[in-house]
């Protein structure tokens, strides 16, 4: 507290310092008498965050806890309210089923394909948006448009593009005599996945591009000037300076996009209803729950989906993201 009043200048950006200051304030609690406001501030902080935390516990933690309970029971499809405790049976039968592993593999295939395309395209787009040229503002607006679109609409848009006779892509392909012109894309294994990946890339590459662009813009111009003065070529500059400095932004985009891709639901739901090798983990849980009314099995599948996504995020944070920890550090 004392530190705060003594230095009214702009607070240095270093967040380590703010952390140190906090601990200083805490240890000095007994010693100095100026800590009345310090304590008031802490109390206020608790009161301001409590409503949100309670609300989030109610809408996130309680349902997930209840899902755990549901997943340990079997519910009668015919008689409402009739149930029996079955322990982990729902999990063992899910993990032994072909459907779960198929959905698991398809979800990861989708996530792997779409996220890698989005990162490559997103980096290219970001580099483009970072160039100073006439029409850059227009390009940014245009690129941003698909991002704001309702996912269901982006699914429908790509459905119109790939319809056998009506579609632009199918027509162009057959006009050029290329394979795929006479294929019902959404009705064929493999092709259906390609459309879903494309629809996702179309809608979410702007997000990756803007995150990476923000990373590009904080690389100082002087760094580039120095590289240029040292005679580094454009490619050398890109590989040895731009990419390493962009790594945190790219990893962050990868994390956000992967977490999102692993819960994919809307696109396959609208485009294929999960047919032709496109059923995702979320879709499988949904169809057990809603269409087959298997509450116990559906809950077990949704918990499995949840655990899978969380496991991937932990792996990411462990191995790829020193920068996620930095983000967390900034928040202290």
């Amino acid at each position, binding site marked *: 507290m004392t530190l705060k009043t003594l230095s*009214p200048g*702009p607070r240095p950006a270093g967040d380590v310092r703010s952390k140190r200051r906090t601990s200083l304030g805490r240890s000095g609690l007994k010693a100095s008498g100026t800590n009345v406001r310090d304590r008031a*501030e*802490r109390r206020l*902080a*608790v009161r*301001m*965050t409590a409503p*949100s*935390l309670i609300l989030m516990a109610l*809408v996130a933690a309680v*349902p997930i806890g209840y899902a755990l309970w*549901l997943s340990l029971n079997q519910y009668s499809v015919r008689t409402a309210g009739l149930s029996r405790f079955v322990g982990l049976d729902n999990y063992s039968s899910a993990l032994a089923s072909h459907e779960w592993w198929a959905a698991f593999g398809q979800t990861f295939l989708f996530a792997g394909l779409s996220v890698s395309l989005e990162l490559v395209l997103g980096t290219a787009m970001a580099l*483009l948006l*970072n160039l100073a*040229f006439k029409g850059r503002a227009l390009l940014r607006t*245009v*690129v941003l*448009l*698909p991002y*704001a679109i309702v*996912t*269901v609409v982006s699914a*429908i848009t790509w459905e*119109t593009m790939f*319809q056998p*006779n*009506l579609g*632009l892509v199918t027509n162009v392909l057959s006009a050029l005599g290329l394979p795929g012109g006479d294929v019902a894309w959404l009705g064929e294994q493999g092709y259906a996945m390609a459309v879903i990946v494309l629809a996702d890339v*179309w809608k979410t590459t702007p*997000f990756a591009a803007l*995150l990476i*662009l*923000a990373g590009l*813009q*904080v690389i100082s*111009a*002087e760094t*580039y*000037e*120095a590289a240029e003065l040292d005679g*580094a070529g454009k490619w050398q500059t890109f590989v*040895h300076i731009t990419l390493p400095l962009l790594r945190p*932004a790219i990893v962050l985009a990868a994390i956000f996009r992967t977490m999102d891709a*692993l*819960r994919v*639901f809307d696109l396959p739901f*609208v485009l294929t209803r999960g047919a032709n090798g496109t059923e995702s983990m979320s879709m499988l849980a*949904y169809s057990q*729950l809603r269409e087959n009314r298997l*509450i116990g099995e*559906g*809950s077990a599948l*949704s*918990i499995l989906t*949840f655990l899978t996504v969380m496991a991937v*995020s932990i792996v990411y944070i462990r191995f790829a993201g020193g920068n996620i920890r930095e983000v*967390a550090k900034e*928040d*202290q």
Partner: protein
Amino acid sequence: MSTVTATGTTAARADRSHPTRRGVASLGPGRRPGKFGPGKRRLRGEARLHPLVWVFVVAVMSFSLVPFYWLINTSLKTGSSLGEGELFPSQPTLDNYVSVFGSSEFLLAMRNSVIIAVVTTCVALIFASFAAYALARLKMRRKGLILTLILSVTTFPAIAIAAPMFSIWREIGLYDTLPGLIIPKLTFALPLAIYTLTSFFREIPRELEESAYIDGASPFQAFRKVILPLAVPGLATTAILVFISVWNEFLLAVTLTTSPAARPVPVAIAFFNGTSEFDQPLGTISAASVIITVPLVVLVLVCQKRIVSGMTAGAVKG
């Protein structure tokens, strides 16, 4: 590599007096190249773009825009022309739009979507503005842990919330109602709002609170009278982002509704789609899609800067 960076710092130090690249770039394309010497200090791509770069620009623009065009094109076709891939509809018709606006189901879905998105956004913003301020500015224990928890909720798969909510709501009668959708949607709207707002609050200069404190304000008064009015742009940005994400949300909406009474637009369109696998009313669906896309496009055109700053807020620090 190491030599490059080592010399880089010295060169950078010697170069401080020069305008930065971005500063020069804002002078526009009228600046003569070569003014600062033989191309050494030329802007990245400022003078002349490689023709291949232009090809790439055009490709990116087409990739973004052509699907929209095709959606509109499809929405202007009916009957047999829906089976043809004409680049321009030979007999454009607004019939599809007329039938969409004539459908009470679609209008009801619009109403539901607006109510759900507005209420969820407002509730999330009210709760989040307090929490975000405390997390951004006040002294507090376990701040890092709390923020990590909040951030991790945004990565939860919605099915893990939807599945139990489906059972709970059917038991207590909230299934297939608007409140029954608004409450679970807060699960994702609230953390998004808190996270975005926290980074906006951090950007407000600290001196403002300091001087409020010196004037005798309590921390809460400083928040309410000084910070909150200044945070209006950040609040607006957050509201836009939360609104878009709630408007787009599909899984909770499709799991927790069963009739047009509570169905929001994305679900209504998806079920429009699903009547039969072989005879799809693709023209009408496209028209409905265009209709709900127009407001979002306008939003992007008007609030582009806000959306971009909100999307990247907190992600990468300068």
